[in-house]
């Protein structure tokens, strides 16, 4: 009996860790989405942070907090470079271009073995303390909360909902979207180093399509109009396969798909939707 409880805890502790890592990626995606950009770029920003973090652990004695900071900055630098090229594109082409960027990232990682370990990847002899992961996530969510209430958050919503009206109020949409990309880059870079340390291993497959899928699904699931939506969505999306595995292992994939479908049909704006909350309040 005791064995089962311990097994469950072991399984769920790592699920909790990955839920928090995925929350970083989902928040990075939310950062751009809340300014009207659908982008898969956080995968690439994560790769920048992840490989830099891995190299710093392997080849230096820099303390963890500085590694986190460096990974975030690396993501931000890459995101701003990408933004300067991509923000010229119309929104749907931008989404496609960012998907292409994910594919390019993998090719670049494979072909720069000196930096990334190439096809073999890099093993990282440094576990990720869960309290660091949780602490940084709380700080990040706090920053998103503060931003959401600030002039930036309100301007970003205006750009997302009606760019033309926003510009006539003096808002430069390119400036807002550049800021959004920078934030996405920093948070994506943090997510990348967290992922690397959580797995204690990075390879070209660490930052690839499955991460893009998880983070987009997480944001849609949790709610792309609320600062806490991505965290909730990432948690649900990370836990769902594990829970399904525990209860109906033979129908795990069907269960996942059905749960997602139900949410898409009945909650198209996600689990947390401030507009729906306000509508409910208005009806009272």
């Amino acid at each position, binding site marked *: 009996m005791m064995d089962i409880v311990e097994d469950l805890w072991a399984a769920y502790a790592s699920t909790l860790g990955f839920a928090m890592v995925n929350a970083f990626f989902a928040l990075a995606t939310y950062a751009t989405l809340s300014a009207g950009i659908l982008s898969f770029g956080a995968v690439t920003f994560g790769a920048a942070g992840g490989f830099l973090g891995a190299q710093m652990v392997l080849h230096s004695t820099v303390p963890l907090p500085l590694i986190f900071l460096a990974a975030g900055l690396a993501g931000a630098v890459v995101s701003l470079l990408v933004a300067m090229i991509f923000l010229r594109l119309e929104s749907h082409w931008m989404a496609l271009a960012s998907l292409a960027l994910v594919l390019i990232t993998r090719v670049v990682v494979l072909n720069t073995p000196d930096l990334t370990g190439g096809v073999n990847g890099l093993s990282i002899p440094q576990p990720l303390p869960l309290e660091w992961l949780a602490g940084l996530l709380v700080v990040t969510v706090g*920053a998103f909360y503060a931003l959401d209430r*600030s002039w*930036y958050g309100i301007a970003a919503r205006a750009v997302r*909902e009606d760019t033309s009206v926003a510009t006539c*109020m003096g808002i430069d*949409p390119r400036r807002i979207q550049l800021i959004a990309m920078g934030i996405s880059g920093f948070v994506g870079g943090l997510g990348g180093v967290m992922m690397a340390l959580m797995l204690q291993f990075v390879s070209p497959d660490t930052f690839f399509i499955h991460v893009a899928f998880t983070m987009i699904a997480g944001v849609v699931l949790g709610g792309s109009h609320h600062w806490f939506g991505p965290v909730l969505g990432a948690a649900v999306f990370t836990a769902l396969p594990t829970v399904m595995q525990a209860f109906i292992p033979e129908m795990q994939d069907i269960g996942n798909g059905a749960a997602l479908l139900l949410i898409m049909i009945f909650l198209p704006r996600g689990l947390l939707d401030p507009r729906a909350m*306000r509508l409910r309040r208005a009806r009272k």
Partner: protein
Amino acid sequence: MTLLALADVTKSFGGVTAVGGLSFTVRPRHVVGLMGPNGAGKTTIINLISGLLHPDAGTIRLGGQPVTRARPHEIAGGGLARTYQNVRLISGMTALEQVIVGSYLRRGTSLLASILHLPAARAAARATRADAMDLLARVGMADRADTLAETLSYGEQRRIEIARALASQPKLLLLDEPTAGMNAAESAEIGRLVHALRDDGLTVLMVEHNMRLVADFCEHVVVMNFGRKIAEGPPAACIADPAVQEAYFGKQRDAQRHRA
């Protein structure tokens, strides 16, 4: 002394000339009406002035600065604010938030201070909120501040849109048919608000095709038809102008023929 000057402004869409060689000026602290039947090119003019469209020829100056090729947010930064013919509020925002968006140009705090939730950023946000509340009170919407704007009536949404435009403290306010869909009492209230704003130093250019309202609201009128100016001057003289009568009601002998 002019606040806004259009000189020979021309804009075509495909082969259709929406605005052809239009010139007029707007003096500070005046309420100027832009009048004309449907399809006269009034909204095109508003879009040209606010920078959503750029003229094919001619120049537009705002406060002496050429803004012919400027982008909308730059023109807004130069002191222009506008409303829309079909109210365009932002989905999902409360009435108060709509007005806060309008005060973007006066945000008074940096991005970093906002991320870190510094006291200076919080104080700036509080001041913005208080100013937005004052503006909502000014248009009589203070008690609806926390209501989702899209659930309000059309007339209420129009008033919120005006409050939003005022939030940037513009020098020139463009109103695109501010009383469309309003009854006489509501229209008169908008008229009183516009006059009060002028008395506070604001300049207003309003598109309106209701002749009586123009006569009541405006000190100076520009009348357009098919993209060209057909009359300009005091409202009463313009409305009496045969060319204006013809544009609105058709030719006299047509009417007689119909009667016969």
